[in-house]
């Protein structure tokens, strides 16, 4: 287990290093970037940037200074809002985005698993077909389309839910549905196919031959095995939810990190783009790492294998 975690940890740090370096060199390549001579920013900002990134030093030195700022999590000032640093924006936006993201992923996981299990248990029945038609629909409708549709119906036509901001539980309903539907549909489909496959396994037949009750077989013998593949795609789903927050926050005017990120892209506010990208990447990669560990804990075979047993 220790060896397994160490290996994952090394890979994680390597990946973060690569994305941080990639970001740095890409930013250097753009005309008008904070690292570039032809930038057209005002003097205060320029002075701030020079101070933070030591732009008069050679490239390699700049790179090391930048890497230091990545490690210490200090991404310097924003170009467009000279009074604020990137960290200010992250500190303000991230809690809101995290709340939106976590609520959505929890909703997606719970409802997706329930839908998938019921579809599998009624394999080829009417519930199965309806659940899966719903799931394909959920995968096919882009979240920004769904979001506008929800606002149109619930906020404008029927006027039952608020359309914007993130100020109360009622405000959270529409953004959460818009963001959670896609991952929920993916989880439901995966749970269903994995459950159907698990239910054909010999150990399920053995359990039936022992005379166990059907619901007990589903919960004790099938569910844990069937959910293994769902755990493996959690990383990808988290990434999807995270990028989904960009458009959802834009549409619902939620003052989260995604909104700042989209604004920074449109305004070419490079320090913010850089800082957010590196932060998001590190966060996601960290989540992937946790997912891997969770998988190792769930499946007894992995633990032993990595210890060099068998």
């Amino acid at each position: 287990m220790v060896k397994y975690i160490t290996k994952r940890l090394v890979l994680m740090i390597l990946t973060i290093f690569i994305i941080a370096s990639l970001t740095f060199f890409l930013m250097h390549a753009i005309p008008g970037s904070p690292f570039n001579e032809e930038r057209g920013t005002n003097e205060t900002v320029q002075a701030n940037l020079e101070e933070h990134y030591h732009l008069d030093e050679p490239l390699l030195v700049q790179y090391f200074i930048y890497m230091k700022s990545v490690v210490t999590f200090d991404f310097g000032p924003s170009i467009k809002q000279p009074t604020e640093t990137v960290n200010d924006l992250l500190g303000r936006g991230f809690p809101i985005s995290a709340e939106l993201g976590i609520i959505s992923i929890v909703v997606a996981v719970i409802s997706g698993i329930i839908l998938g299990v019921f579809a599998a248990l009624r394999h080829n029945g009417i519930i199965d077909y309806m659940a899966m038609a719903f799931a394909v629909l959920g995968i096919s409708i882009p979240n920004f389309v769904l979001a506008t549709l929800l606002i149109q119906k619930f906020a404008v036509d029927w006027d039952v839910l608020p359309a914007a901001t993130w100020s109360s539980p009622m405000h959270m309903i529409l953004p959460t549905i818009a963001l959670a539907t896609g991952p929920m549909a993916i989880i439901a489909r995966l749970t269903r196919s994995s459950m159907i496959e698990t239910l054909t396994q010999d150990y399920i037949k053995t359990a039936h031959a022992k005379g166990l009750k059907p619901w007990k077989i589903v919960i004790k013998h099938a569910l844990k095995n069937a959910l293994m593949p769902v755990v493996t795609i959690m990383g990808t789903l988290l990434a999807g939810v995270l990028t989904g927050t960009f458009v959802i926050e834009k549409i619902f005017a939620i003052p989260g990190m995604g909104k700042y990120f989209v604004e920074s892209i449109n305004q070419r506010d490079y320090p913010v783009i850089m800082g957010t990208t590196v932060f998001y990447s590190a966060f996601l990669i960290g989540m992937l790492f946790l997912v891997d560990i969770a998988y190792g804990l769930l499946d007894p075979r992995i633990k032993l294998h990595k210890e060099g047993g068998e």
Partner: protein
Amino acid sequence: MEKILEVNDLHVSFQTYGGEVKAVRGVSFDLHKGETLAIVGESGCGKSVTANSIMKLIPSPPGKIANGSIYFKGRDLTRLSEKAIRDIRGVDISMIFQDPMTALNPTLTIGNQLTEGIKQHQNITSKEAKTKAIDMLNLVGIPNPEERMKQYPHQFSGGMRQRIVIAMALICEPELLIADEPTTALDVTIQAQILQLFNKIQQETGVSIILITHDLGVVAKIADRIAVMYAGKVIEVGTRKEIFYTPQHPYTQGLLNSVPRLDKRKEKLVPIDGTPPDLFAPPQGCPFTARCPKAMEVCGKVYPIHSELSNTHEVDCWLQDERAKQHIAT
């Protein structure tokens, strides 16, 4: 001896998108207390389906017991409700499946899987269940049972896993044990050990065994009686002696000629040519006609007569007809 199982004219079919497959087409046999009956046949002959039908483990749909009855201690299992059959499964009748590598749940400990059946069926404490499980592991020859109860299936070898599966099947002390190809997935040396274990268990517990196999070698070691199945029918049944020394059906003879035997030296192994018939459209007459070296015109047209050669030896073959015997003689 007391009859504990009586299968009469069992028909099982599966609805597939290619049409209806009649996997079992009128199988009858019975089983006495403490006896080992082997059901032998090629893959796809319906022997596993027959075994699964006894436990009502045929997935339905697409499978269906279309006709016939299965009397176990006076009760017709085919008519029992799902709940009633659950109280029989694992308690009165237990089943062992072919592949011990997949028959155990990889994410649960051995102890958990051993005790869950007895906890379900008997009103006992966890501690008693555990003691019982350890006894069973001792019986099937697992060393260090207390330690091993905490381990997962992947920490055992194939032979050990099959022993655990057997222990699991025996924990509620069933009267009938159905073993579906219990040694097929194992190494030859392990096979012998497992077969010995069956013998030992039968002596100690008096359980009746139905052994499903395609391997006549396995049968020779432990079966009291043998039923030979072909294309969903029992074509010959008899004691071990009758089947091995005076086989009547050309298919049984073919089977015996296609396996190596130690008691008959220098004899060439003869494979049976061809493949079994398609059960989407089973032939009208004897299903073996197309591959039978002694086929006559009647064989393809009418299903053979059922002849009883002794109290125990029965065969479905036209060669038993007087007219056929005359033609061969001339």
